[in-house]
């Protein structure tokens, strides 16, 4: 990966991945989905998930699955607001960068 993914973009990607499962999703699945988009060391996501949980963007609940408890993550109302903010910021940012790359025209 040539470009670094900063903390805000990583938060946005995680929120987007988790919000893709309205019933909630779990750590391993989140990691695999994020890794489809960006190169990510497998141990990186725990602190991100934990922080988003503390910031009340994610909520956790345990659900029994195949005879054991599995921790699920689900996007909160606050998390959704945060995600839509990230999305609109990303749209503006990427359009500006694209415009510049494709010949100096910034599409508003």
């Amino acid at each position, binding site marked *: 990966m040539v470009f*670094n993914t900063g903390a805000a973009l990583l938060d946005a990607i995680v929120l987007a991945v988790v919000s893709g499962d309205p019933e909630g999703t779990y750590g391993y699945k989140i990691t695999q989905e994020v890794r489809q988009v960006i190169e990510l060391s497998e141990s990186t996501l*725990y602190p991100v998930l934990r*922080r988003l949980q503390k910031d009340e963007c994610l909520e956790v609940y345990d659900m029994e699955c195949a005879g054991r408890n599995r921790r699920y993550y689900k996007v909160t109302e606050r998390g959704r607001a945060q995600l839509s903010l990230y999305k609109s910021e990303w749209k503006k940012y990427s359009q500006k960068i694209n415009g510049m790359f494709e010949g100096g025209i910034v599409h508003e």
Partner: protein
Amino acid sequence: MNRLEFMQKLESLLSDISDGEREEALQYYNDYLNDAGVENEQEVLESLGTPEKIAKTIKEGLGDNGTTGEFTETGYKDYTAQHEEKNEVIKKKEKSSLSGGMIAIIAILCILASPLLVSIAGGLLSAGVGIFVGVLGFFFGIALAGILLFVTAIVLLVIGIGCLFYAPLAGVCLIGASLFVGGLSLFFIWLSVWICLRAIPWLMRVVSDLFSKLFRKKGGEKA
């Protein structure tokens, strides 16, 4: 390292954080390994990294508020440390480009130019000295010739006057020759005086101009 050892190691490494945080983290990784599947266990343990690395990541995540770093896809990054490092590198580069580069260029120029400059200066110096000595020799020759011709003229005049009494024709011839030689000697003496008063100061001026030009040029190249 198998899964049990891995989890025990991680637990002991996390013994200095709160019980809640430790349980949270242990549950996450326990779940993670369960979901990865028993058949991939060794592979997943390897790709997760060492328990030390994971414990470090977890602890850095806890100190998130008020710290200077952030999480990226490559893990935790402390930005102040990185920036300081970068600044240091830039400073080092600036220093080396100012001192090392300049010194090297000056040294190389001096080394390359010095034999050339020395030989040019030596050549011009010896040429100047040669011309000066030659001119002096020429001047002395002319002066000496003038003096000798003058002496010859006087001798011829004395002999001619002596001859007038017993061989008048030879005496007149000798007096005429002495007058001719005397005129020639006067011309040579006049020429040597002219050289002494005009030509030598002029030559000196030319030589000194040449030297001052040479030294100015040399100075200009150095600066």
